[in-house]
């Protein structure tokens, strides 16, 4: 049994103009010490997925169905009190923008100590000692002095180190990192990512890394999911998906990478843009942009625009696409015929 099992997770936002389904049928697992990447455009539901694991979605949003099992416990529907013991303790989070994540009016030390004290019966002095040790681990220069500083006295990169230190404070089983380097200077991004990877490996911490950067995913994670319009459309070992993407959307993403284009030529964009969640196309949400769904004569493939594709297994990956399903079907039938 995996450490974390997410099954058919459904998240909706109850807005005045109606319900918006932000997440549908999301399933994945995470083993102890495993590193999983969640990839997709902004608005695909990556962050919602991350926040809903700990039931941290803001008010109009709620978990409409599905389950999140962590270490044998069901997290959806768990009382806030019980969830509090898991948040920051066994599963901790790293947010996107370090400039906004730390409370501007509390010292770094205060924000670390309170987290320790929320989960352990511990003396202040002892908590400070642990905080100091964690700050050393994230390689902050003069960690002792940092404890009494306020966030605005630190640079963005340093603040993100502090946040990583906070995430590691209670030696969690899983860290959920929501685009941890997007808001940072390019020069610091690699440094922070390397640090995070190193610490996760060293302490055998599971990592759920949310990003739109395929390069980072391929370097850091072992498995990945690709999300589109609130659904997972492809998942499997990172290496396999990167080398041989099956879903037309994932293929498009890979082709759009600058290194895939010949110098001097236009980058290979996916035509169109992701639909908004309150106005999804019927069938496969990707079909209006999909080369496979559009036949050569301009008509659309009926299956693609009426049926939501189920998952089919291709190699070690799972893909939700009619085209892939058909291909597998075609391959299997001749194989069966020859054996007959």
């Amino acid at each position: 049994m995996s450490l974390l099992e997410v099954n058919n997770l459904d998240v909706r936002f109850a807005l005045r103009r109606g319900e918006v389904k932000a997440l549908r049928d999301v399933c994945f697992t995470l083993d102890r010490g495993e590193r999983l990447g969640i990839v997709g455009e902004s608005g695909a539901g990556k962050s919602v997925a991350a926040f809903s694991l700990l039931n941290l979605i803001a008010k109009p949003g709620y978990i409409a169905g599905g389950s999140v099992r962590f270490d044998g416990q069901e997290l959806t529907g768990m009382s806030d009190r019980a969830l509090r013991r898991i948040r920051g303790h066994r599963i901790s989070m790293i947010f996107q923008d370090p400039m906004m994540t730390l409370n501007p009016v509390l010292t770094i030390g205060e924000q670390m100590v309170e987290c320790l004290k929320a989960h352990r019966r511990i003396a202040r002095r002892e908590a400070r000692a642990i905080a100091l040790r964690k700050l050393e681990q994230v390689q902050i220069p003069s960690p002792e002095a940092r404890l009494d500083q306020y966030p605005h006295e630190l640079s963005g990169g340093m603040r993100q180190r502090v946040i990583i230190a906070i995430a590691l404070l209670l030696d969690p089983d899983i860290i959920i990192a929501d685009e941890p380097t997007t808001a940072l200077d390019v020069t610091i991004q690699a440094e922070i990512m390397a640090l995070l990877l190193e610490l996760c490996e060293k302490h055998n911490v599971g990592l759920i890394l949310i990003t739109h950067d395929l390069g980072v995913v391929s370097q850091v994670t072992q498995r990945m999911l690709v999300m589109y319009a609130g659904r997972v459309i492809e998942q499997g070992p990172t290496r396999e998906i990167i080398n041989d993407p099956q879903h037309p959307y994932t293929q498009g993403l890979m082709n759009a990478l600058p290194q895939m284009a010949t110098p001097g030529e236009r980058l290979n964009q996916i035509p169109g843009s992701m639909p908004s969640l309150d106005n999804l196309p019927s069938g496969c949400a990707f079909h209006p942009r999909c080369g496979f769904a559009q036949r050569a004569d301009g008509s659309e493939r009926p299956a693609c625009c009426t049926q939501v594709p189920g998952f089919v297994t291709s190699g070690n990956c799972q893909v939700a696409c009619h085209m892939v399903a058909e291909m597998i079907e075609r391959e299997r039938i001749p194989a069966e015929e020859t054996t007959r």
Partner: protein
Amino acid sequence: MIAFLVKRLFHALLVMFVISVIAFAIQDNLGDPIQQMVGQSVPESEREALREELGLNDPFLVQYLRFAANAAQLDFGYSYVFNQPTTEVIARHLPATLELVAAATFLIVVLSVPIGVYSAIKPRAWLSRCFMGVSIVGISIPVFLTAIVLIQLFAIGVSWAPFPADTAWGAWLNDLITTEGGMPAYGRGNPVHVFGTWYTNFASLDGLLYLVLPAISLASIMLPLFIRLIRAEMLEVLQSEYVKFARAKGLRLRRIYFLHALKNTMLPVITVGGVQIGTLVAYTILTETVFQWPGMGLMFLDAIERSDIPLIVTYLMIVGLIFVITNTLVDLIYGLVNPTVKLTGKPA
């Protein structure tokens, strides 16, 4: 921090300078001390001599400097009406006003913070909606009208029976809207002497009773503003990333609301609100008029009525000073609470 202090102090001095120029201009143009000192029968030549002697024919700047030098020593001359140094007259009336403002401030702080925080934490609860509804009505009622209504309800009393008195619920409702009256609503009663010119209403039950209606009236003007301000700021703070992060850390809601969110909420509230507390002094003019509260506001109106120019000028200077002091204090407190101020000298 030093640079910050110096800057604030400079600003305060500048404001006091502007006020003193205005006050002097008033005195120079409206007040004719000769008129007050001598009767109508004195011939013009003698007046002119007196003018020369008093330096009233000196250039504007010289006269202003003399005025400013005296003002710095709290010497503003004699009140025409009381025939006493104006500062003494003010000193007699100042404690009443300050006590009224203090009582109102107490009410505002004690009520606005919990109500504002509650209606931000539970914006959809019916109680929050009630608070918001009452507060917008409160903003729309001028302070003197609140005072009048309070007098009608609690000093004079209301007895009416619009509901059928022969039914149980009707009698109950009639009872509910009938008020006894009898609350003291005029003057200060018999305040207890503390020292000098300071008599206090806080030291006896009787004194406190006299304070109730004026203080509620005065508080009623700012309370809704503060509730709405605190609620709006808190709502904004609760949306912030650091509050989400605090939740992700597994902190108790109580700690998140009352430490993480409230501390950030109070920063803008201190700047906006602190200044508003200062302006309560202005509203005391209205409250004191209605309740015949013998404070500076009532004295000021009286001085206007009787054209007691030196007293008017002194009042303006003193009130100006009070405003400047509260503003500077507010800035200082803000600087102490907000850690980002120290480095840059101004809020980042």
